[in-house]
């Protein structure tokens, strides 16, 4: 294309401020790799490059030791034992392995799966795939207005034909934390296993597979300051959860996932888990403070800003806000030096607004006005202040430009207008 484009984000720091632009507030999409993680990984690219499955020489032993230390670090983060951690390429693969693997293994006895409409696409698509394969029945539970699962509905949906209940721990779009322990108890009452997609939860909120009754759990390294391309599936051993492998070959990972392990990535993943475990309290204290600072400052300066998802049951590093009467993508364009995500349709090829927000009963027009702010380990107070200033300025400007805002100020009820749907 001949179109001349403008660099989306100027790189210079604004005068007199201790920040670098652009500012990253999209920690749910991915996180930067912690420098301590990178450092731990480096030797495994160069000197300790062996194949961990080589049993006959020290190169192999060295690599294997790196992998096993990492496995223990990851197990410790979630209260599991080492043998229950299976390495994968990420949470997408872990979710696929959990759902298809358990689904297919137990199909003859139990062929039902219960999940929730606000799950990540990879969970929903894996379930759809099983339905298409035939012989499975999947229930997609609605959520309450606050984004949480209705436990009574769940209890009705789980039957003695249910093999697996899959409910995510922390939602990637709105940050709500599901009542994992209660969900597990409901699944177990009927003899079903409980799987949770903890891609957004591991390393962010305390998780304990024993105390919470989790049977399978998906983790992704790149959401917790580790490298991209590696993840894990926790698979309970007592009582034992069986599953059918998706990838066949050399029989690594106890036959559940063949393929040579990516040692540097795994070592980094382990280091990231260790840092998350030892620094979680400190990190969360900071993140909560920054999150409150952002939320309070925006609400002080702008009216009609709505927080999507439950106010209490949430990971504070995720703030999904609807700026009424301002379309999300136009706001993102105005705040180009702040990297965020929008629930508005326009950011994707589809013109549908976020299915997660729609599932909460957020009206389409409000879903179009939502922005997700992701706050993480590297976020600073100065960055938050700059973000607030920029957002407030642009929301005000766009509201001045918004015919909807004008009508509401004139006292016109937008619902009374006959809109020309197109």
């Amino acid at each position, binding site marked *: *294309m001949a*179109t*001349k*484009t*403008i660099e*989306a984000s100027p790189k210079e720091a604004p005068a007199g401020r201790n920040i670098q632009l652009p500012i990253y507030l999209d920690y749910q999409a991915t996180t930067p790799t912690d420098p301590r993680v990178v450092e731990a990984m480096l030797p495994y690219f160069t000197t300790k490059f062996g194949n961990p499955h080589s049993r006959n020489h020290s190169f192999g032993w060295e690599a294997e030791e790196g992998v096993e230390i990492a496995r223990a670090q990851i197990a410790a983060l979630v209260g599991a034992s080492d043998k229950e951690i299976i390495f994968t390429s990420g949470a997408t693969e872990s979710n696929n392995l959990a759902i298809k693997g358990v689904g297919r293994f137990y199909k003859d006895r139990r062929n039902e799966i219960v999940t929730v409409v606000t799950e990540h696409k990879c969970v929903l698509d894996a379930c759809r795939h099983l339905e298409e394969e035939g012989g499975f029945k999947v229930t997609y539970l609605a959520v309450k207005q606050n984004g949480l699962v209705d436990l009574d509905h769940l209890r009705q949906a789980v039957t003695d034909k249910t093999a697996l209940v899959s409910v995510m721990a922390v939602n990637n779009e709105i940050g709500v934390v599901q009542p994992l322990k209660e969900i597990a108890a409901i699944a177990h009452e009927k003899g079903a296993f409980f799987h949770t997609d903890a891609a957004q939860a591991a390393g962010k909120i305390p998780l304990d597979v024993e105390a919470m009754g989790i049977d399978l759990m998906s983790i992704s390294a790149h959401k917790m300051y580790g490298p991209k391309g590696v993840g894990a599936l926790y698979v309970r051993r007592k009582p034992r959860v069986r599953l059918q492998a998706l990838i066949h070959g050399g029989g690594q990972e106890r036959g559940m996932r063949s393929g040579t392990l990516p040692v540097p990535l795994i070592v980094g993943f382990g280091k990231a888990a260790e840092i998350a475990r030892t620094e979680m309290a400190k990190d969360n204290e900071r993140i909560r403070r920054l999150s409150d600072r952002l939320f309070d400052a925006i609400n002080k300066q702008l009216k009609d800003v709505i927080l999507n998802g439950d106010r209490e049951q949430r990971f504070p590093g995720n703030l999904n806000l609807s700026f009424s*009467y*301002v*379309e999300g*993508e*136009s706001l993102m*364009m*105005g705040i180009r030096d702040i990297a965020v995500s929008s629930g*508005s*349709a*326009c950011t994707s*090829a589809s*013109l549908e*607004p976020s299915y997660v927000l729609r599932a909460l009963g957020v*009206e*389409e*027009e409000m879903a*179009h006005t939502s922005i997700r702010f992701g706050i993480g380990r590297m976020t600073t107070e100065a960055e938050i202040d700059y973000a607030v200033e920029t957002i407030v300025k642009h929301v005000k400007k766009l509201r*001045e*430009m*918004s*015919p*909807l*805002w*004008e009508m509401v100020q004139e006292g016109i009820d*937008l619902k009374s*207008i006959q*809109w*020309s*749907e*197109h």
Partner: protein
Amino acid sequence: MAYGEKLIDHYENPRNIGSMDKHATDVGTGLVGAPACGDVMKLQIKVSPDGIIEDAKFKTFGCGSAIASSSLVTEWVKGKTLDEAESIKNTQIAQHLALPPVKIHCSVLAEDAIKAAIADYRKKAGTMPRTESAAAVKVAAE
């Protein structure tokens, strides 16, 4: 997504934002789109007694491409006769702003907004006797 230079310029420095009295007889108002679809455009034109668009204003709820499309058409319609303005095609808007395929609907909406504003003006003007319409418009504008 990378945005074109002209699109960015119209988004950052939108021309002719504002509102005119929608009850005035020399003002035509077009309100198109729907909040649920993510874009609403309000385009207003002020027409001189000899049928020339003297002024145009807009307000838009929508993505950057929708804002830029409506800003651009307010510039384009000024100084044109109603017939000339009515012949503006969405493809011209899309081409000028280098809109990506997923944003073509924004230019369609802008074209619709012009047509709706002109139709509104004609409806108002049409209700008045031909010979007196210029005078009537003048009175209404005062």
